[in-house]
């Protein structure tokens, strides 16, 4: 039995389901050609993103990567913001300037990473260094795929965090694949958690498809970090049930492997558990699902009605002084007339 309150358990369920249903809407929009750029699903990994984000306290911070939609939802990002973001409409938190989950909402503790995987680790280390200096008890979290663990920036960043005993939790979203590259070709270590001794850190491996286990492990990791014990590597073993992005048919994966993992679907598993533990039954689940669906229908309609952002032909906003170099930018349109 768990000591996690029924309230939190229901929220874990709600956010996993919200993630899945929102992504289903997004897939539909993608098929209709309304999504700008690629679309990356977290199908099968919802427990990892949701369980870890739920364990954060107010004021904590993180960088979401491609499969962390759930984490942003837990932190209060509205589905319509996500819809606008993915359709590059007005109302998107990045104002149409960047894609995927690359947006910053500091009040919610969400910061936009850059696409170069691994770079979030040194940057988050600096954020935590600043917060400690400023007297804040912030814990920071970076999500890293098994692929991203190979990047040099991860190494430099986690080593820096280790030496400075920064309250950083690295969540390894181990889903066996990095695009088409299997873990065997990614890293020679048995598990990513095996990297911990090399930096003098603590680590834990958890079933990433068991949302309660993830939540509890994340709490431990976050407590560890907040108490001044330095960074923690939390490896969540999960699986990417869809291709790298929607265009990718996963032809490089043995179907049996996918089928095997489908059986471990984190939402279905948690439904059963909630029922077994008497926390939530079919009727309650249906209610949650209907409520989510109804809101999502509205959100999709609303988002589709939003306009595209209007270009600013002066390309302001590159520097703090908005006017800096704007004259030069206008010369691009020889004579200053963009039309």
């Amino acid at each position: 039995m768990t000591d996690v309150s029924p309230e939190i358990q229901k929220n874990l369920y709600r956010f996993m389901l919200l993630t899945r249903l929102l992504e289903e809407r997004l897939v539909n929009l993608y098929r209709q050609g309304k999504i700008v750029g690629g679309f990356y699903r977290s199908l099968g990994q919802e427990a990892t993103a949701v369980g870890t984000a739920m364990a954060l306290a107010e004021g904590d911070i993180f960088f979401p990567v491609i499969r962390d939609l759930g984490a942003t939802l837990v932190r209060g990002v509205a589905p319509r913001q996500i819809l606008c973001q993915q359709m590059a409409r007005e109302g998107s938190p990045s104002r149409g300037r960047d894609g995927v989950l690359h947006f910053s909402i500091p009040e919610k503790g969400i910061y936009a990473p850059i696409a170069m995987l691994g770079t979030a680790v040194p940057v988050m280390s600096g954020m935590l260094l600043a917060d400690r200096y400023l007297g804040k008890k912030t814990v920071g979290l970076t999500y890293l795929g098994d692929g991203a663990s190979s990047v040099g920036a991860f190494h430099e960043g986690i080593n820096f965090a280790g030496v400075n005993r920064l309250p950083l939790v690295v969540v390894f979203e181990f889903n066996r694949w990095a695009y088409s590259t299997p873990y065997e070709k990614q890293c020679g270590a048995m598990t990513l958690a095996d990297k911990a001794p090399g930096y003098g850190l603590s680590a834990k491996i958890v079933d990433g498809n068991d949302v309660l286990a993830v939540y509890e492990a994340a709490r431990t990791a976050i407590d560890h970090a907040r108490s001044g014990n330095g960074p923690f590597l939390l490896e969540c073993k999960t699986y990417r049930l869809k291709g790298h992005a929607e265009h990718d048919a996963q032809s490089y994966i043995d179907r049996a492997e996918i089928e095997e993992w489908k059986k471990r679907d984190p939402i279905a598993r948690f439904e059963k558990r909630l029922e077994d533990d008497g926390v939530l039954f079919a009727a309650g689940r249906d209610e949650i699902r209907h409520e989510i669906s109804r809101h999502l229908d509205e959100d999709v309609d609303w988002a589709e009605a939003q306009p595209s952002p209007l270009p600013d032909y002066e390309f302001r906003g590159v520097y703090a002084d908005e006017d800096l170099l704007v004259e030069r930018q206008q010369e691009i349109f020889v004579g200053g007339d963009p039309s």
Partner: protein
Amino acid sequence: MIHPVPVPGHEGTYVDGLRLALFEEMERDPNVIVLGEDVGVYGGAFRVTEGLLTRFGPSRVLDTPLAEEAIVGAAVGAAIRGLRPVAEMQFMDFISRGFDILTNFAARNRYRTGIGVPIVVRGPSGGGVHGGPFHSQNPEMYFVHTPGLKVVAPATAADARGLLKAAIRDDDPVIFFEHKFLYRRAKEVLPEGDGLVPIGKAAVRREGTDVTVLTYGSGVWIALSAAERLAKEGIDIEVVDLRTLRPLDEETILASVRRTSKCICLHEDTRTGGLGAELSALLAEKAFEFLDGPVLRVTAPDTSVPFAPSLEEAFLPNANTLIRAVRKLTAY
């Protein structure tokens, strides 16, 4: 299901040109190997390396960890020991992660030690497909500015093939900028024979008398479409496809500008310190007496490449921006 290998003498896309070059060169020289993220089983994010693994096996086609510095570094090392590695960046934006080894190890090794580093680092660059700030960059100038490197940027399918082959045979490190917007849009009959296109030679894509447009990559197509519209106004522009950005084909550039006396540098890269600057300086030095007007630059503005199509469209130079510059210059 692997797409059949493109055949010389038949129509092919820019990607076909690249694929054909890789097949031909790997067939010709057993020391050519290919490495990068997802280049093997998957055939590359843009399918440029499709079929290579099946044909040449895993010792010559390596799926690597997600680590550009390792990819570039391993390529450099393999080249030092005699191979001819072709390293793919999944997007050229990520070359920033191999920047140190490229600019400090690869570029300087011959001068420092006498040992050349015949690598090719290739991959998709450029915008127009709504990739946002990190999947649309044109980072060529970082390498044009680095002595010891060569920089190539084909605009056509035949050049994609011919220049990639030349790059692989080149004894120096070549950074090879493909343009992803052209991958499936640029098509033509790929020439019979080996189709080699020499590094360091520009191509005059359209002859004209009024203004020379110096450009490369996507710019070539912009210039050609502007040329058609300008022709209707009676303005006749010459379009020079630079093809190699380092070393520049000064002969062709100077011959053209000395003839037309007016020049515009067009590129998708951002303005300050872009190739247009170097071209302008070159003309100042070697064609000053021939110039009847200022050398103008038509480029992207100095921002990141924005994600939303509406914003990206405003960001990218296009036929309209070029035409306005041409009109201004001819009226000068």
